[in-house]
């Protein structure tokens, strides 16, 4: 097996007077999609910030493609729960933010941004400002922005949590399509069991106070997964198992 795309070893973190994460260890292989399920306030966002190099580690080690994380890096792309688009920039410019907008971008980056917008069905909206976009469109722009520099590791913090149920499911399928075109290591934080099972190769379940791993299960469902997948017995059995575990953890 090749070296992991992401490797966590005994990761811990505390805010003053409050331990958020303790002794977290897991690996993500190249091209592997891992969903992290956990109760809210359980430290999932903190975990992603640590991996992204946005917060200094408290304890343990985080390696991305074999090298320790010391700060944000270009081979890691991130999306957030809120779309976090700059309201004063067009959709295209927002996608090009990692390259320094249109002015700073190379022709290749520009072409890639346009292709990404086309891939998520927003080719005609390239010159729209965020105020002109719906929540789902804005979040898709966020996905395109994450993919601009073709990162090897994707970090996604409940990216669809703020959307309505229909849009949310559609977004999961858009993400699956983007990911299947070029599978890469991904950590996808969610509190939706359905979403986790629709997207992930593996589900990691975190418990609360301090955040720690209580389960790390494979999701042996064939791809591409579709709304029909959610009606299969395998899907429902796994969902039920996760639900039981989740209730235990929360109790």
């Amino acid at each position, binding site marked *: 097996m090749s070296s992991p795309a992401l490797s966590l070893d005994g990761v811990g973190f505390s805010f003053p007077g409050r331990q958020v994460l303790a002794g977290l260890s897991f690996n993500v292989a190249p091209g592997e999609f891992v969903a992290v399920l956990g109760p809210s306030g359980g430290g999932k966002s903190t975990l992603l*910030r640590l991996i*992204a190099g*946005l917060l200094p580690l408290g304890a343990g080690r985080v390696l991305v493609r074999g090298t320790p994380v010391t*700060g*944000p*890096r*270009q081979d*890691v*792309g*991130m999306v*957030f729960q*809120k779309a*976090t688009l*700059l*309201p*004063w920039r067009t959709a295209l410019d927002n996608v090009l*933010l*990692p390259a*320094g*907008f249109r002015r700073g971008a190379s022709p290749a980056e520009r072409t890639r941004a346009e292709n990404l917008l086309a891939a998520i*069905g*927003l080719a*005609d*909206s390239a010159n*729209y*400002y*965020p*105020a*002109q*976009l*719906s929540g*789902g*469109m804005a979040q898709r722009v966020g996905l395109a*922005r994450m993919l601009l520099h073709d990162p090897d590791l994707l970090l996604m913090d409940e990216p669809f949590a703020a959307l309505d149920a229909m*849009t949310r499911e*559609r977004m999961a399928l858009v993400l699956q399509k983007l990911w299947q075109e070029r599978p890469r290591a991904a950590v996808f934080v969610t509190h939706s069991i359905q979403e986790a099972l629709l997207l992930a190769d593996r589900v990691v379940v975190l418990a609360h106070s301090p955040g720690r791993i209580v389960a790390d299960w494979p999701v042996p469902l064939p791809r591409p997964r579709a709304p029909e997948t959610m009606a299969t017995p395998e899907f429902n059995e796994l969902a039920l198992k996760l639900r039981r575990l989740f209730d235990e953890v929360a109790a």
Partner: protein
Amino acid sequence: MKAAFARFAPPLVTLVLILGAWALATGPAGLPSYLLPGPWPVALSLWNGLIGTGSFWPHIGFTLTSTLLGYVGGSIAAIIVGVAAAESRLFERFVYPYVVAVQAAPKVALAPLILVWFGFGLASKVVLVALICFFPLLVNTISGIRGTDPELIEMARSFSRSRGFVFLHVKLPAAAPAIFAGLQIGIVLALIGAVVGEFVASDRGVGYLIGSATVNMSVTTMFAGVIVLAGFGMAGSALVQRIQRRVVFWDNAERHIVTPQETA
């Protein structure tokens, strides 16, 4: 045409009513003209000062010069200091509490002192105007930059963007609406500052014109002066608002943009 009529007709009606009431109050049965002159003499005085003899123009020129120089200078200084302050922890800890305290003090009270320091000419008025517009804009600039959505800053950081980039492309645009609010307050305060400076000591300016009319008990000229000032205040305010609409276009974008249909 119809829309313009609908927009301007109601305030025009109000204006006619006010002028009518004013004419009545100063008519034969009303107040004596040395207390409240009628609309007609005031209009005549305006006509004379602006067009007939043109005697108002040197005063207007003086007041506008000190207002504009002070406003531009004070605003540039406020934005520069505000940016430095918002980006510096030391400034926040050591100086900011005093900025807030000084902001609450009425700067016009310093007018006599500034006149002693900078003389009775243009310089003292410019300094007073600059000082008066400085603080509201400073406070707005600082709070605007500080108020930037931390999630936007974190997003930009996650894409390896430099501190300079984050400032220029995230914090400064995020602060722009607050900065323009400060500029809007400033343009009105600037005119007040210039006039107060002229009240205290000057041999020119619209404030001087009003002040010397008081000595002559020429209430008509005082009214004409106040109307001229009101005109410039409104024009300045409208100009800043126009610039604001163009620069901070996204702040009210939702209102004039039709949201396109979501494409699946």
